[in-house]
């Protein structure tokens, strides 16, 4: 007994930090996801020339909390003849896989939950791929035809685009030589290459962008969960809290996929031109940005209709000013210099992830949905061949580059021709696809999936 207690204390002494981080993330992430949904609704409203949620709280800012309360108090309906164990298990699998993959991410050089995993990026990609089970089992456990077909379609889509996403990541990983997340970002800093990999492998970034939209079931690839198609697909029979688990899993997957793209292609937590002395003025951009936002809030305060909203705007302005001061400290005060990497790194990382997610949302409101056979054709006949060709040309470019001892920005000399070759191949595949589809214009959609 004594040995067990001693062993537990040793374990806690070693691993208290990751455990605490994990608990905090599991507690806080649903709230963050709720606010991402609010941002999406406001963006959607803005792009559709309306206002979005405005009633609950000032400017609709308490809407996520109202939604959460509503989902929690809803009646839990389980369909007749549904397999109760699997029905309970399916959303848990989805959410578990999504939350577990967050453990492999690195927000700053010292902000890692699981430090220095040898297989970093592969861990994140692999564990988030386990979410497919939640979808497949959810559709099957609902004991309904629509759900089953929606889940089969969705998982077929996920599996197809996973290959393309993996090969795109491989082309990016060729440039680093390691899977460790921290080492990948450090390879993009001034110590190694000093250039973001999106410039060295733009085709890979594009393929990963498209594949990640399909991986998270977002528009225009959201046929399996579109309301006009299969009545929300595999999520049809799940109500209340179970549905919110699936929803949480989807937005967490979005965050994870954006973080992977940011880490590998967009330079992680590095500021643009990190370490280059000439561009040190960019260090002042984060605090100036926050001061700008605070100024905008202050300007809009007199125009608010009611007292409560004016006070609220002032509070937001005050918050932004506080954040600006925190961001200014490591740059202006010499005492706070060691915190520069952590604070500014966190800011740049969150900014890049937000830009990526903003792009997801922007696409959702702009492009119409793909039909399922078009979706599968895009994945198998365009993205996978293109990603394989891209791996080949980037590999050849790297060999040529290392023969001439090129590093950093001079690598662009070899990788730009490689990207051009990959683009030419892409256009050739597209042209060949156009020709063959012009030949058989009236081909029926693949009959298995049409049901």
């Amino acid at each position: 007994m004594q040995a067990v207690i001693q062993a537990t204390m040793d374990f806690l002494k070693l691993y208290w930090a990751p455990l605490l981080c994990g608990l905090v993330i599991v507690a806080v992430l649903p709230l963050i996801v709720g606010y991402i949904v609010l941002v999406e609704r406001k963006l959607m409203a803005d792009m559709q020339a309306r206002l979005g949620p405005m009633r609950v709280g000032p400017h609709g800012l308490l809407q996520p909390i109202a939604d959460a309360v509503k989902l929690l108090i809803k009646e839990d309906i389980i369909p007749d003849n549904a397999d109760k164990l699997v029905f309970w298990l399916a959303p848990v699998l989805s959410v578990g896989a999504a939350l577990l993959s967050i453990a492999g991410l690195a927000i700053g050089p010292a902000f890692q939950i699981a430090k220095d995993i040898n297989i970093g990026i592969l861990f994140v990609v692999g564990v988030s791929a386990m979410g497919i089970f939640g979808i497949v089992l959810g559709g099957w456990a609902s004991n309904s035809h629509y759900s089953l077909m929606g889940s089969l379609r969705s998982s077929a889509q996920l599996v197809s685009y996973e290959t393309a996403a993996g090969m795109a990541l491989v082309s990016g990983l060729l440039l680093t030589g390691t899977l460790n997340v921290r080492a990948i970002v450090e390879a993009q800093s001034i110590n190694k290459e000093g250039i973001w990999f999106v410039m060295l492998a733009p085709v890979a970034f594009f393929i990963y962008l498209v594949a990640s939209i399909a991986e998270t079931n977002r528009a225009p690839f959201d046929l399996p969960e579109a309301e006009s198609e299969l009545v929300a697909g595999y999520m049809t029979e799940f109500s209340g809290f179970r549905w919110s688990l699936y929803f949480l899993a989807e937005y967490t997957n979005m965050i994870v996929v954006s973080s992977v793209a940011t880490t590998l292609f967009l330079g992680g937590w590095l500021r643009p031109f990190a370490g280059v002395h000439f561009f040190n003025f960019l260090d002042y951009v984060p605090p100036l940005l926050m001061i700008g936002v605070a100024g905008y809030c202050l300007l809009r305060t007199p125009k608010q209709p009611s007292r409560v909203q004016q006070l609220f705007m002032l509070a937001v302005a005050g918050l932004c000013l506080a954040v600006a001061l925190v961001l200014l400290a490591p740059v202006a005060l010499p005492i706070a210099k060691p915190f520069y990497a952590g604070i500014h790194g966190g800011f740049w990382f969150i900014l890049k992830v937000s830009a990526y997610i903003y792009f997801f949302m922007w696409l959702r409101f702009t492009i119409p949905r793909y039909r399922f056979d078009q979706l599968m054709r895009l994945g198998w006949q365009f993205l996978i061949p293109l990603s394989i060709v891209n791996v080949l040309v980037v590999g050849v470019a790297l060999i040529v580059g290392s023969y001439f001892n090129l590093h950093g920005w001079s690598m662009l000399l070899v990788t730009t021709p490689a990207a051009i070759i990959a683009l030419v191949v892409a256009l050739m595949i597209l042209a060949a696809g156009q020709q063959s589809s012009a030949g058989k214009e009236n081909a029926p959609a693949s009959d298995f999936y049409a049901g």
Partner: protein
Amino acid sequence: MLDKVLFYIFAGLAITSAALMVTRRNAVHSAIFLVTALLATAGIFLQLRAEFLFIVQIILYVGGIMVLFIFVIMLVNLDVALQQIQFARQKWVALIVALALSAQFGLMLWSSEKIPGQGIPVLAAPPASELPPNSEAVARSLFGTYLLAFEIASVLLLVAMIGAVVMAKKEK
């Protein structure tokens, strides 16, 4: 100490899931228990410091092969299958044969210390801190010593892919 606890947790999970897997009536339940058994095996790989194999097991086996199995189970799932006899006619003979096999295994494991020159080596494993980074070591070995086997495996996968597509095609 942590090593021991992790091993016993994963080993218990693996054996329990495997035993449950071969005894379920519903094929989807069997598949779920096989997924749990595979995840426990991946945990054993991680406990043995084989990190690359851990993640390959999760991506390929759990995320690929088991999804394929569940697809096919859903395609061929007949409700009448749930009421049919579950075990084959030869189940008692089969159990006796399995018992004989396990007796052989047990004898081997038990006699390794008794009979000199036979059985399990009593080497000491190198401590975990002296192991080289796992992915790099596997990659060096895979593309160095075992390059031919790697190429043959890729041809095998190509053949299997073509074979599976041809098999599952509908006759027009």
